[in-house]
């Protein structure tokens, strides 16, 4: 059941000029934009919020007419607002895209049940088709079972790997080659910070890309909310009374990411623009040219392709995907002989997941740091 937020009854009479919206100068300002500190009214807020997303879509040429697009829908605020706004913009600006909601059922009792119920209501509310793909169907394991076997600590690692594949597979099943996700400016800023804090230099330059795709995978990802503040997304959902689900995943998020998020929120309190500032910085972080090595020329060619995502091997080198490689186990597209998901699954079957994880992530030091950080509270 969805209960919308209450409507206020009190209204300010006799507006002072200083209370007016700084854009239209005709209505009461109701929020201060974190991006540029402007005080604006509800009408202008809807207008700038939607138009900015439209501009992002157009200037980055995210869609082409007739394209089938899946919205990775979790039932949470970001993907709910994304589905709503995308549908609205598609009608208003005639992108000519076909939108489908694509949900992943990880199999987390109590958390996913409720959020899936939200997505099912969204399907009706926005009149969009919905496809649900479950971990059980894909991997024969639910997240609850994985956690029971591998422990809570590595749950996000499993879920991350499995979900990425699941979205890809779901999209392919629907013959859709473009998944849009609700990642917002805050998420992106967080990722830039995390990459600096973890020293993940190979991902640093790519962390602000609006569109990514794993080479070899026919499915591309994009983030139309790249420049949209979390605060504005929540406010938009609030004012529009959108039906979204908000409970933290039962298997709490990665603790280190949590500390970075807390840190960012403290900053935002004194410099509201910091989210967009971090993204700006992120777009300007480039690595020093590598000292001449054999791979240099090859590497340069790859770099020209902005949408290429590269895999980073434990020893810090970059592996280049060959098109059309398939996992020997599941036949799913993969850069390696055996795909990440299958490696994790094998570990689960053997009930020795921890070892597999260490082999998989990166050098021992880094993996250890990650585990240490998971115990850390800020």
């Amino acid at each position: 059941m969805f209960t919308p937020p209450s409507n206020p009854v009190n209204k300010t009479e006799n507006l002072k000029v200083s209370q007016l919206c700084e854009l239209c100068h005709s209505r009461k300002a109701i929020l201060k934009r974190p991006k540029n500190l402007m005080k604006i009214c509800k009408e202008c807020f809807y207008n700038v919020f939607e138009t900015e997303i439209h501009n992002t879509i157009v200037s980055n040429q995210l869609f082409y007419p007739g394209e089938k697009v899946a919205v990775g829908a979790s039932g949470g605020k970001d993907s709910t607002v994304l589905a709503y706004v995308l549908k609205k913009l598609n009608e208003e600006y005639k992108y000519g895209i076909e939108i489908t909601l694509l949900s992943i059922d990880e199999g987390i009792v109590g958390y996913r049940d409720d959020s899936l119920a939200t997505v099912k209501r969204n399907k009706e509310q926005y009149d969009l088709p919905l496809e649900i793909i479950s971990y059980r169907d894909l991997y024969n394991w639910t997240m609850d079972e994985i956690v029971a076997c591998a422990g809570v600590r590595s749950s996000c690692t499993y879920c991350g790997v499995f979900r990425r594949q699941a979205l890809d597979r779901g999209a392919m099943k629907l013959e859709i080659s473009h998944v849009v996700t609700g990642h917002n400016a805050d998420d992106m800023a967080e990722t830039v910070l995390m990459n600096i804090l973890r020293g993940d230099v190979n991902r640093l330059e790519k962390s602000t890309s609006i569109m990514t795709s794993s080479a070899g995978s026919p499915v591309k990802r994009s983030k139309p909310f790249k420049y949209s503040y979390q605060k504005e997304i929540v406010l938009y959902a609030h004012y529009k009374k959108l039906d979204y689900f908000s409970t933290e995943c039962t298997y709490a998020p990665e603790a280190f990411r949590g500390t970075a998020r807390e840190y960012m929120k403290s900053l935002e309190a004194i410099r509201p623009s910091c989210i967009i500032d971090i993204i700006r910085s992120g777009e300007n972080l480039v690595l020093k040219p590598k000292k001449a090595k054999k791979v240099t020329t090859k590497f340069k060619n790859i770099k020209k392709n902005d949408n290429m995502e590269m895999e980073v091997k434990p020893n810090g080198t970059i592996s280049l995907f060959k098109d059309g490689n398939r996992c020997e186990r599941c036949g799913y597209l993969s850069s390696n002989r055996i795909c990440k998901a299958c490696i994790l699954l094998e570990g689960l079957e053997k009930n020795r997941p921890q070892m597999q994880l260490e082999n998989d992530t990166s050098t021992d030091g880094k993996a250890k740091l990650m585990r240490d950080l998971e115990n850390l509270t800020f």
Partner: protein
Amino acid sequence: MEETLIPVCERCKEQPAVAKTRKEYFCKECFSKFILLKQRRTLISDKDKFLETVMKVTYKTPNDEKILLALSFGKSSLVVLQNLIEYLNNQYSQQQKTGFILETITVVENDDEYKKFKEIIKTLEKLKDFEILNKGSIKFRVVNINQLLNQEKLSLLKLNIEDYKLLVEDINEAASIININQLLIDSFGTQYKTLSSKEDFKNIAIKNTIEAVFHSFNYKALVYGSSMSKLATEIVTNTVIGRGDVIAKNLDTKFYPLTDVFYSEVDAYYQLVINNNDILLKGEEFSSSNSILIQNDNHFEILKKSKQTKTISDITMDYFNTIEGDYANVISTVVKTGLKLGNPNAFISASENLKHCKICSSNISKKQNPADWINKITVMKPAPINTDEERANYDHWKTETALAVDKGSEATNEECDNLCYGCTVTLNTSSHKSIKWNTSNKDAALLNQVLEDFVL
């Protein structure tokens, strides 16, 4: 008093340990050697051994090449000063020659600090740790930033809120004595929330002054005392205030002997070896909650700021402090990451002249023009006016602003886009989107009028 077992130093295996860092127990002597060696190693290996080449005693070429040390008289820069003095003294006692001239630059903000600076110089003269064998090899320079401001022509820099372009207006400040803090208050007010913006611009004013001195007097290298923790804080702070593009330049064009030394180690070294609070100009400039000393009887009162008075760098320091003890990896990882960064404008063709920011003088490329970037992601178009009530409000606004415009004089403003992203954002947080700033070139002649030199 209860007797506790004091572990033995893991290096010499003899002396009792006084500090524990990087999972190892050190006695006083081994710890002090450890810190000096870390600095020495950084100095001689950094940037293709450039500094070592400058510093060493040569017999063919003159040995009067000058190195400038930015000396704030905080613990870190004093530790570096002590180390460089020892380096010079070693050269002198072994070769009867010194290989370079060390000059320091201290920027003071007011008369009190200037007086304190002079007292510190007197005190230094009596301290054994800072005894200089070759008297001519060190010079201490000081500049009062307000005196410098009063020598220069100020401009009013105003941000056009419609398109984020910069309006520059020359102003003839009527013989009033300008003070940097007052100048910042005029723009940002006194509210706590503006502390970060004021800190940002004040740091820039100080940085500009130091760099002007560096560029005007033929120095070979600019050395900063920043510890690894401080560098990590600066890297992350620059990232979060949109100044990511200057990280690489800051690290690549200056020398940091303490790159590999944590602040907690600097602090411990200071207490164990230098142990003198009379030569600190501003007290604690970088707070660390973790002491690595085993018996810490010299309790420093750590400045506990309330959250409301914290700036971005305070919050960043706090963040690192919560992880510095057990998660030291993060700090060194951040610095290593920073060192791998390069110039974002490296691939820009030579034909395009880079512009310089009117405030911080960093490079701005056309491709990454901040105003264009902001305008692209920020819509400024209002929604239409619908009701009579809204129309009435609008008319009301129009009459009021029309009155205000009439009052103001129509100055001839020059519009330009010489403002970097970070300065644009900080300027945007000021009450009237404007600041008075000196945009003129600080040359040797101008600096000579305000610089004062001291020799021990």
